[in-house]
């Protein structure tokens, strides 16, 4: 039964992630990424990470993807989006990576029979039933300093986004292409 759920989530994640790369329209790419986020959240639930599944939906699907759609619709991109002209170079990079992954996976299945006793064995104790409580206690005891640094990162990103995207003070009399497209419609 768990294998069935894993197969469903994995197939949907792979299919939608390929659609994100393959679709021409950025809005469709963002929407298929939304479907992928929901299935990743489902995969987190099967991995006993319920709090992270909720956070995945709230933050990724609720905040980040809305920001993407907002920018896509502000910029109003209509032109044809072909693939990059350097896709041959991309092929030269990606095909060896793929082959390397295959080799690593093939080697991993061979070494797994001997590697299980050496130190990769799963720990015996079970995860606490209250996932949110356990994460909160870990976050505010062991990882307290990284937590504070993460809040600083968010503050810096907020200030940086405002500084980068705002207009200059004397720029109102010269509307950018953003305003012109809105007026033209």
């Amino acid at each position, binding site marked *: 039964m768990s294998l069935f759920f894993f197969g469903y989530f994995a197939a949907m994640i792979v299919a939608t992630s390929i659609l994100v790369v393959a679709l021409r329209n950025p809005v469709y790419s963002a929407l298929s990424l939304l479907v*992928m986020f929901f299935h990743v959240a489902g995969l987190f639930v099967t991995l006993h990470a319920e709090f992270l599944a909720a956070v995945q939906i709230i933050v990724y699907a609720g905040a980040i993807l809305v920001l993407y759609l907002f920018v896509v619709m502000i910029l109003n991109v209509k032109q044809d989006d072909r693939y990059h002209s350097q896709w041959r170079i991309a092929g030269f990079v990606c095909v060896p990576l793929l082959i390397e992954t295959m080799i690593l996976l093939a080697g991993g299945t061979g070494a797994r029979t001997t590697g299980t006793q050496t130190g990769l064995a799963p720990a015996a104790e079970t*995860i606490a039933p209250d996932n949110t409580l356990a994460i909160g206690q870990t976050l505010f005891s062991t*990882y307290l300093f990284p937590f504070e640094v993460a809040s600083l990162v968010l503050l810096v990103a*907020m200030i940086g986004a405002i500084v*980068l*995207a705002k207009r200059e003070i004397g720029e109102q009399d010269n509307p950018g292409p953003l305003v012109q497209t809105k007026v033209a419609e």
Partner: protein
Amino acid sequence: MTIPISYYLILSGVVFLTGVVGVLIRRNIIAILLSVELMLNATNINFVAFSDYFRDLGGQVFVFFALTVAAAEVAVGLAIIIALHRSRSTINIEEFNLLKW
């Protein structure tokens, strides 16, 4: 029955490679940022799978931090895209060759 950890690694590797291909072949900057999100999600799947495997909550806490960094990256990246679109009125990556050799 339980899922072997290698299945999660294969899934995460496939999603990560899809993201790498997307970053390399797309010309739309927004599609490139979406592919970066794909790569971040692949690492998140890896973290949570190992967190469940080793019964250690550190992996889930690191997914939390990766999510923070993803949010910051999206905010700054989209601000840069808006500034670029304002100065060049395009978001095609091949038009931005000012820093190219």
